[in-house]
């Protein structure tokens, strides 16, 4: 066990798997000698060499498309994209091909690759550095979408993602890359994909979140007297509906916190499922706390955009008083 933050936990997973499985390779811009813009791959190049930790030409689409070819022919590429907004180009290859390799070949070929990218805002970054892309990618059948919110889960989920036989988009919460430290085993272990986690049990209200927002949701609720059941979604797709529904049936109240734009967002999908499966157990209409339906703002305004404690508590008050 070592005390690790999310950056270190992700690196530990990559290190474990590069050592264990010769078909695994890390590829991307600056992932080699430089160790990545967030230092996630720091030291891996020196340890595993240029054929395992590969600095590619500066083309996100080229990284994605060649990763597909690599994956189809027996490799397990872990492609890093420096910021989530740079994924819009490669989405073409991801949607057109990676997601459909298995179905179009009737199972003859598969595409076991992992796309890693930091996502979400809160670090006063440039434009296109803070996008919440989980709904876009999660909407495409054939892709899995995973978002850790703690160092322990980051490592365990990433190891599951690398070993998964299908393409997995692994979105790393940039804002809390170094904000949380906890004991993480140095050895390999997995946290299963497709399973949400109840991080705090409670009986008054179910509060659902993921990624960086989970931490701020927990911090906010710690300042209230509510007995909140807090669920970390962990896998956007395939979604663990059961954990959500069981909790909402128990509490009858629900708030969903996500920093993605609200319109057609992932929070809406959770609400739809609650409507379908727990409507008659509801004591109050569920409420979404989301980012606004605008481009992610620059530094001066990002604190107004990302749901803050005030907005989260206001939403919980609203469902409790209804």
């Amino acid at each position, binding site marked *: 066990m070592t005390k690790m933050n999310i950056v270190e936990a992700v690196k530990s997973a990559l290190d474990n798997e590069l050592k264990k499985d010769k*078909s695994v*390779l890390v590829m991307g811009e600056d992932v080699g000698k430089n160790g990545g813009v967030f230092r996630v791959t720091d030291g891996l190049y020196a340890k595993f060499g240029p*054929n395992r930790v590969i600095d*590619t*030409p500066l*083309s996100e*689409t*080229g990284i994605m*498309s*060649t*990763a*597909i*070819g*690599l*994956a*189809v*022919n*027996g*490799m397990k*590429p872990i492609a890093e994209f420096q910021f989530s907004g740079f994924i819009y*180009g490669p989405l*073409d*290859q991801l949607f*057109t*091909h990676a997601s459909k*390799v*298995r*179905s*179009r*070949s*009737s*199972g*003859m*070929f*598969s595409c076991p690759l992992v796309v890693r990218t930091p996502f979400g805002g809160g670090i006063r970054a440039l434009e296109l550095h803070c996008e919440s892309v989980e709904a876009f990618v999660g909407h495409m*059948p*054939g892709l*899995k979408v995973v978002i850790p919110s703690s160092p322990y889960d980051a490592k365990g989920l990433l190891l599951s993602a690398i070993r*998964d*036989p*299908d393409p997995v988009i692994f979105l790393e919460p940039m804002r809390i890359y170094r904000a949380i430290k906890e004991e993480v085993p140095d050895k390999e272990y997995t946290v299963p994909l*497709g399973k949400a986690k109840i991080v705090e049990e409670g009986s008054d209200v179910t509060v659902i979140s993921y990624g960086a927002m989970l931490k701020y949701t927990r911090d906010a609720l710690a300042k209230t007297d509510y007995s909140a059941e807090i669920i970390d979604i962990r896998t956007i*797709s*395939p*979604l*663990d*509906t*059961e954990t959500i529904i069981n909790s909402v049936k128990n509490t009858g109240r629900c708030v969903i916190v996500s920093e993605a734009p609200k319109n057609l967002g992932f929070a809406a999908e959770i609400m739809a499922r609650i409507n379908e499966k727990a409507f008659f157990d509801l004591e109050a209409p569920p409420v979404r706390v989301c980012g606004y339906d605008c481009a992610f703002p620059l530094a001066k305004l990002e604190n107004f955009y990302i749901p803050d404690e005030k907005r989260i508590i206001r939403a919980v008050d609203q469902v409790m008083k209804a």
Partner: protein
Amino acid sequence: MVKKVVESFNVEYLQVMDENGIVDKELMPKLSDKQIKEFYETMILLRAFDDKSFNMQRQGRIGTYIQYKGQEASQLGSAKVLNDDDWMFPMYRSGAALIVRKHPMHKLLQYGGGDIRGLKTTEKVNNFPISIAVGTQSPHAVGCAWASKLKGEKTVAMAYTGEGGTSRGDFHDALNFAGTNQVPAIIVCENNQYAISVPRNKQTASNTIAQKAFAYGVYGIQVDGNDIFAVYKATKEAVDKARAGKGPTLIENLTYRLADHSTSDDAKKYRSDKEVNEWLKKDPIIRLEKYMRSAKLLDDKYKKEVAAKAAAQVEEEVKKFESIPDPKPEEMLTNIYSELTPDLKEELEELKK
């Protein structure tokens, strides 16, 4: 101060057999009479299947069909060079290449008839499903070849693209990644002069497609794509070179789409009969016939036999296609992931109701 030439390239064009079927003996690749006859027989079969598929679409027996008519030499001469465990990344017009690579004709009809299972390759041949999105497949061949290189395997990967596909960024990515990593990939650009209605000169201001390779540190060559011997020779050299670890090649096969873009297109709207007639004279099959006749490899009797055999074989494939049961509705939900997700399980139940 100095101003000088820092780099220059020569782009070669290869033709072994001219339009009259006259062969340059020095350039002629080593081929037995048997191999040459096999080329001819395969091209006749490919043409027969293409004509039949077109007719079946007109009769409503299959959906949209994309003809490769006129490009038989370009596809046969290149696909034939690959081994079964080599990789091929075809595009929607690569039906001929697929048939050459043992993809059953009835399965192409199955796909045309609206059944995705028709794309499934046999277990022993690495044929990736055809790409529908133009030009997106070239970098897959590069990634795939890269994997062979990293694994220390001797397999190579080949992608087919059209000249229209070279306008996309994916073509740039493919050549750039192929060049920087020196992978055993071959990109075959079938320059058939049209991307639906848009002519070749609107795709690029380059004199050739082949010359684009050199900018990426990749070797490129332009080939008479209606000359089966030239295509075979150029591809064989490229594949041998790739297999020997000497890097990728871009091959531009100059050819012509004798048919419409697809069964939903009418090429008369954008090209003249005169132009098409000029290219009909360059038909790869006619040219090979001329050569074989002069080399005493073909006479009228043999020609008739080959045509009859091809027609019978195609009819056999049509019968096979028509006996394939429709896919079960639930099959659209399997093979999305390696295992059914909880959502898909629920949807499967709903579908079965």
